[in-house]
Structure formats: C-alpha cells, structure tokens
C-alpha cells in the first residue's frame, strides 16, 4: 500500500512539475519575441498595457539567464501570482479563476457522480440480457460519440428555444444577485439543469459501455464459472461480478477526468456558464495568455487532486492493493 501511494504521488508530482514547465516553456518556444507578440496581439487598453508590461518585465526578466527566469516563475507561482488578466484587467488571474471555480465544481461533481453511478447500474443490468442489450448498447455508443457541445446545443434548442422551459445562458438571471434565498437557489438550479443534463448524458454512455464489458468479462471469469458449477443463483454471481467490475471502473474514472474536463469546456461555452471552461473561451478570444495559462494550471491541479481522491477510494475498496499484492499498480 505504501509503495502504491509513493508511486502515485511521484507520478502526480512529476505531472505537476511537467505542467508548470510546459507553461513556462511554451511561450518561449514560439517564434518571435514573446512579450511583443503578447502585447501586440492582445487588444489592450492603455492603463492595462502598463500593468502588463510591468508584470512582464518582472516575471519574464528576459535579460536574466534562462534558469533564473525559470526559478522566478516557480517563485511567483508559489506566491499565488499567475499574472494579471488582460480581459478582466486589472484583476489578478488567480482571483478570476477562484471566482469561477464554485460553478465548475457545482456542475462537474454532480454530473460525474450521477453518470458514473447510473451508468454502472444500467450497464450491469443490461449486460448478458440479450434483448435489452441489443437495444440499449447502440444508444450508449451514440451518447458517448456525441460531442458535448453538440448535445448542449441540441438541449438548448429543444428545451430552451422550442419549448421555452429552461434558460439557456448564464448560471443565474442578471436581475437576481447571489444569496441563499429560495428564489435564488431555484433560479440557479433552473440554469444548472441543462448543462448538467448534457454532461450527464454523454458520460452515461461511456460508463454503461464500460460496465457492460467489464461485467461480461467477470461473468466469464473462472470464479464465476465455478460458482455456477456449484449451482449458485444468478443473483449471487452477478453481485460478485458487479463488485469486481466496479474496481476497473473506478480506475476508469481517474482516466476519464481529462476528457470530462474537455466536455465541460464545450458545455459551458454553449450555455455561457461562468466556469473555467467559459473563462477559457473568453481568454482565447481576447488572447489573454495569462488567463489561458492560469486556467491550464488550475485544471491540471484539479485533475490531480481528483486523481488522488480516487486513489484513496481505490485502496479502500480493493483488498489486493490494501494488502500490497498488486492490483492496479500504475
């Protein structure tokens, strides 16, 4: 178990290190003088330009040797200094991102958990039931092949425009300001529902397919066969298979996080939902490079934390890892 965690932590640390290094390196690898390119490309107002230029000279310090620049980059990172947003200047990038994180978590966590649970249950239920499987499996494939943003567009068009039941932009109405009142919460939930639904549906397909295949695999496994030979009822065999099939699905959750984040970006853009995904679009449109880099770092950190949480859960549920006897080692 110790070995398992040490290994995982090493991977995460290296990943974080790599992500920060990429963040530092990429602007410097691009052709031309990065500062001039950045300021030139960004549509800057005069007062913002000063602030940006000042930041550049401090953070980039291009007259200094490369290793010094690199160290400076890390230092300011640990101070929480990710630069100043050009698009929302003079707000610091860290603050801009911090403001949008609650919307991300509020959308992503329920969508991921619900789709994972429902997908697993459904996938397990349909596996090895020939008729149902024949009908349901193609549906799952269509779900999982659908681009997140397209499903979002479709839902927005049908439920928002044609039927007019749900709002299609923002996290809450402009007329209302965030508070803990019932009317605000209802308003928030109404805005939340369609983005949630589009994330939920696309992911649902993937989990259901994964579970179906795992269950079939487990039902073919020797232990299932032996239970069957001893006349154990289908129910018990399926229960065992389900439990064992859950383990790879947990690992799968960790592997899918990156894809889900991508999906969230598309969905938020369609619904103008003020999470990091939407922020990222704005940043790209305004060529707000600090904000892009900041979003990148935060997404990486978020995914790493989520990965770690999943690892801890995995250790709790898989006795093989708990006893240091293999299981998923990587």
């Amino acid at each position: 178990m110790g070995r398992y965690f040490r290994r995982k932590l090493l991977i995460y640390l290296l990943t974080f290190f790599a992500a920060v290094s990429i963040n530092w390196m990429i602007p410097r690898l691009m052709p031309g003088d990065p500062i001039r390119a950045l300021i030139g490309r960004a549509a800057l107002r005069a007062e913002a330009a000063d602030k940006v230029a000042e930041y550049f000279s401090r953070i980039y310090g291009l007259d200094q040797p490369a290793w010094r620049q690199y160290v400076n980059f890390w230092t300011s990172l640990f101070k929480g200094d990710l630069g100043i947003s050009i698009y929302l200047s003079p707000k610091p990038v860290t603050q801009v991102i911090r403001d949008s994180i609650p919307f991300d978590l509020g959308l992503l966590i329920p969508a991921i958990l619900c789709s994972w649970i429902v997908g697993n249950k459904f996938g397990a239920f349909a596996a090895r039931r020939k008729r149902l499987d024949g009908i349901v499996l193609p549906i799952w494939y269509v779900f999982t092949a659908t681009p997140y943003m397209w499903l979002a567009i479709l839902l927005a068009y049908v439920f928002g425009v044609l039927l007019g039941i749900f709002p299609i932009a923002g996290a809450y109405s402009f007329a209302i300001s965030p508070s803990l009142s019932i009317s605000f919460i209802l308003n928030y939930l109404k805005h939340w529902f369609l983005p949630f639904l589009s994330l939920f549906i696309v992911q649902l397909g993937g989990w259901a397919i994964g579970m179906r295949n795992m269950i079939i695999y487990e039902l073919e496994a020797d232990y299932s066969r032996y239970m069957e030979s001893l006349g154990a009822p289908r129910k018990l065999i399926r229960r065992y298979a389900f439990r064992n099939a859950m383990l790879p699905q947990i690992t799968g959750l960790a592997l899918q996080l990156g894809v889900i984040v991508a999906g969230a970006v598309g969905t938020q853009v369609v619904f103008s939902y003020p999470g990091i995904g939407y922020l990222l679009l704005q940043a790209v449109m305004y060529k707000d490079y600090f904000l892009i880099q900041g979003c990148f770092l935060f997404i990486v950190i978020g995914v790493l934390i989520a990965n770690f949480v999943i690892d801890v859960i995995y250790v709790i549920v898989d006795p093989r890892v708990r006893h240091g006897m293999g299981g998923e080692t990587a």
Partner: protein
Amino acid sequence: MAVSVKNLKIYYQTLRGQVQAVDNVSFDIKDHEILGMAGESGCGKSTFSNSLVLLKPPMKFMGGRVELDGESLPLADFRKMNEFRYKKISLIPQYAMNALNPTRKIGRMIAELLASRGVSFSKISRELDRRLKLVNLNRSVMKMYPFELSGGMRQRAVMVIATLLDPSLLLADEITSALDVSTQKAVAKMLVQFRDMDLVKSLVFVTHDISILYQIADRVLIMYAGKAVEIAPTKKITKEPLHPYTRLLISSLPDVGVKYSERRLAGIKGRPPGLLNPFPGCRFKERCPVRFEKCDKEPPLAEVSENHQVACWREVGNNG
C-alpha cells in the same frame, strides 16, 4: 450402481458445424469407486466432466442418459440441474487455483455460497474445520483473501469447498497437471482419503497423465477423439492393455511420474482427428499400426473379459 452413463452425446455448436466432443459414450461407476479418465487433450474428457455440472452453450446436449443413484439427470435443463449441482454432483475444476472470488474473504464466500443453496454455515462450521485439517489448511484461511494463499493452498481450499455437502459424485478435472510430482502424490492421497472417509461416494479423476492413475484409480477409462475406447481395472489395463491406442499410451510412458503430454505422444505418429464431422469408422484407424478393412466400420465397446471392455475389431474378432 452409483452412476450410469448411457450413449451420452455432447457436441459443441460452432459456426462451422458441430464438434462431436463426447460421442456415444457409455460406462458405469460403482459406489465407492474412483474412476480414472485419461486421454490426450481434446479427447472429450474435460467436456464430459463439464457437461455434468455446467452444460451451457456452445456445449449442446445431443442425447443419452446419465443416472445418479437411480435418478436420471436433467442435463439439458440448466435450471433443473441446479438441484443436483453441488449437493449431488460437485467439481474440482482444472482452474481450481483461480476458482475463488478474488475480492471476498474465503470464509465469507463459503457462507454466502452455502446460504444461497439453503445450507446454514453455522451448522456446517465444525465439519468445515475438520476438513480443512484433512487437507492441511489452518482455520485462519477463512479470514483471508484468495491472493493471500499460495496456489496449492487455494486448490486445497477448493477441494474442501467442493466436497462440503458430501456429493455422490465428485469430478476432479486435471487437478494435478500444474503440480510437481510430490504435490501430485499428496493431492491424490487426499482424494483417496476423502473417498475412504465417505465424504464423496464416487469420484471421476480426469487427467492426461496416466501415471498418476496408478496411485489413485480403481478402474481406468481411456478416451480417444470423443469415444471411450477401453475400460478396465487399473492393474489389468496397465498389465495387458488391449486397444492399440492404450498400448501405445502405456508403452510410451518411460517411467511413472513423467508427463508424456509435454511432447506429443512420442510413439504414436500423427495427431487425433478433428471432431468437426469426423470420418466414419474407428477414429484411431489413421494412426493405428494394426488396422484392417473392418476398421472402416465403427467398433462397439464390447466386453472381452470380465470387467474389461474395449472398442477394437481385433479384440472383438478374437472373442467372437
């Protein structure tokens, strides 16, 4: 007569046609008897043992009858067979080392399995302890996960589980193939002990390794390409094998304990025929050193002397 098998036909349904894995096989097993079943891989011996406990597609019941303690087994009816599984017929599978759910403690798995078969775990708990001792396992294995045990320990745990409800018929499928010679002997001894203590009434010991049968079997049945070709008491069949295939099998065994299957049978040229639409007549004829025209007709399994049956025209001809 504990078990009687009559004209049993088990085929595999494949897209290219039916594979005649067990074709018209008949024999008996007496109470208190250990029957050794031997043959090359693919001769139908594992199909036979599997068909008695878990007959499901692509395996297909094509006819015949199996009686156990006077009751006819509903082999083709998967559900009805559940009455017999475990309680009357049990299995120690080839894959015994992987036969336990990897994420359940062994004791809990047994309890859940028994409960699902309507047997109370607490009532059987003392007996379980006694049997664990028989196979040299400590009671503490009940609180362990399968991966905490060695392969041999897992196999012995499965031996205990399989026989827990005192089945009338126990099928042991290639359980010694993966073991070294001294462990093979120990396992064989345990099975004989199970029989002697009446934990199982009769036992079919399936193997490709004839040498182990000297130590355990009362009688030996030789299978070739889906057919039973010779049945006789162990001593008799080793001293005076009649079927040309049996002869070659036994003469190609250099010493007791050496596994011949690691090479293809050295003394016998060629390989067994495919069982998808096999040619008519004796299935061994193409490899047989003593074939003659009559072999184009299928030889019956006929009694040539007391307790000795063989399916070969040469032998049948001698008698009649």
